[in-house]
């Protein structure tokens, strides 16, 4: 039967692959995924990649593609949401108060692992939250900006960084870390994952996008730590 190609942010790999197999089982349509950074897949879609669906980890890149007229704006919707949390190595799971002294004490000689604020969405949200909580100036010099959330997570899991800022979904599936604090929802812009059907999409693409909102899909999203969207 027909085959759908989904270009998605690498951080959604586990959830989307699970949903993809469920979709295939239900509809008989095969779904293949190409995971890379949101920026890479965005530029690829712009360049005419054979993608039917684009799912970004960052609203900015969705806007970019809207402007580039590479997606169908009518189909844009948020497929999932996320929370932003602070994690520490499992061995050091004591909860953390999000105050300057507590944070600095916990970081100590180490560094606060975070996605690179200039380029990685998780980093950008993290910077926003820290700023709105008045913590940014204190920790700016103690950051370890990482290439992506998974590396951030790994650095914390291995104890290289005493603390890290990651999504709740990441924390949920890495057993070697513990969530020690959660940033309030209003400290950062909503963390949402917008999806859309591309301009070159096959007819069945919207159906998959719709499928992401079904209870079955929501269940899978929730299992790996994503928040539902309305």
């Amino acid at each position, binding site marked *: 039967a027909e085959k759908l*190609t989904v270009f998605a942010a690498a951080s959604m790999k*586990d959830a989307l692959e699970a949903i993809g197999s469920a979709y295939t089982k239900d509809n008989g349509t095969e779904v293949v995924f*190409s*995971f890379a950074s949101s920026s*890479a897949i965005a530029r690829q879609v712009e*360049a*005419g990649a*054979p993608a039917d669906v684009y799912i970004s980890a960052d609203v900015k890149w969705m806007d970019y593609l809207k402007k580039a007229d590479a997606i169908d704006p009518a189909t844009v919707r948020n497929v999932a949401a996320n929370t932003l949390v602070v994690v520490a190595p499992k061995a050091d799971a004591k909860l953390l108060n999000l105050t300057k002294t507590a944070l600095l004490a916990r970081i100590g000689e180490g560094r606060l692992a975070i996605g690179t604020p200039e380029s990685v969405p998780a980093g950008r949200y993290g910077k926003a939250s820290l700023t709105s909580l008045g913590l940014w100036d204190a920790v700016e010099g103690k950051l370890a900006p990482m290439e992506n959330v998974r590396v951030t997570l790994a650095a914390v899991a291995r104890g290289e960084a005493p603390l890290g800022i990651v999504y709740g979904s990441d924390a949920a*599936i890495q057993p070697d870390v513990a969530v020690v604090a959660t940033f309030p929802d209003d400290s950062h812009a909503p963390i949402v994952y917008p999806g859309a059907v591309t301009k070159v999409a096959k007819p069945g693409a919207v159906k998959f996008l719709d499928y992401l909102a079904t209870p079955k899909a929501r269940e899978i999203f929730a299992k790996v730590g994503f928040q539902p969207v309305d």
Partner: protein
Amino acid sequence: MQPLSPAEIEAVVLTFKVGGLALLVALPLAIFAAYALARWRFPGHAFFDAMIHMPLVLPPVVTGYVLLILFGRHGPIGGFLYDYLGITLAFRWTGAALAAGVMAFPLMVRPIRLAIEAVDPKLEQAAETLGAGRIVTFFIVTLPLALPGIIAAALMGFAKAMGEFGATITFVSNIPGETRTLSLALYTFTQSPDGDVAALRLAITAAIIAFGAVFASEFVSRRLARRLGGG
């Protein structure tokens, strides 16, 4: 540890296809470029040399973007290839080969150039005196004597093609069965916290292939060396 899954086997096969095509196209070009740099003096010599090093100097992702801009279906070269020859490189395994070839190119030119520079021009002179033209001399004197360098270059090129990731994922994305090489599959696994075992399995697979390649190249090199050493 589990055996490789069908998807992983597919990635391995694809890696050989991509690496093989990349070598097939890039090696002759690298030999030509190396010869030009080694034996000719022309204006823009150093510029040409520096250009060849660019994929080494720039982050691979940037090279990937440049490829995407040039060879995408709307890009100047990609558009031409598609419109006139019906060839699409972007998002195809052939594009992955292009990315691998471009990234491997600077690694291949140098060893070959060194090997060509080490060929005594007096032997080329002797060949000419004996009636061999420039091109014939190149093929029967220079090239065979530079063979150790060419083998080294092929090995490095193939290794780089196997490991190439940044430019590939940026240029041709990470499509299973089409552009997801071993290296990209490995990267993809590292993106999920529970992918470590699978990542390790693929890393070992990659290492085994690399070992095979090194052994093969050493074997050929030694046979060559024995010949040149007499016997």
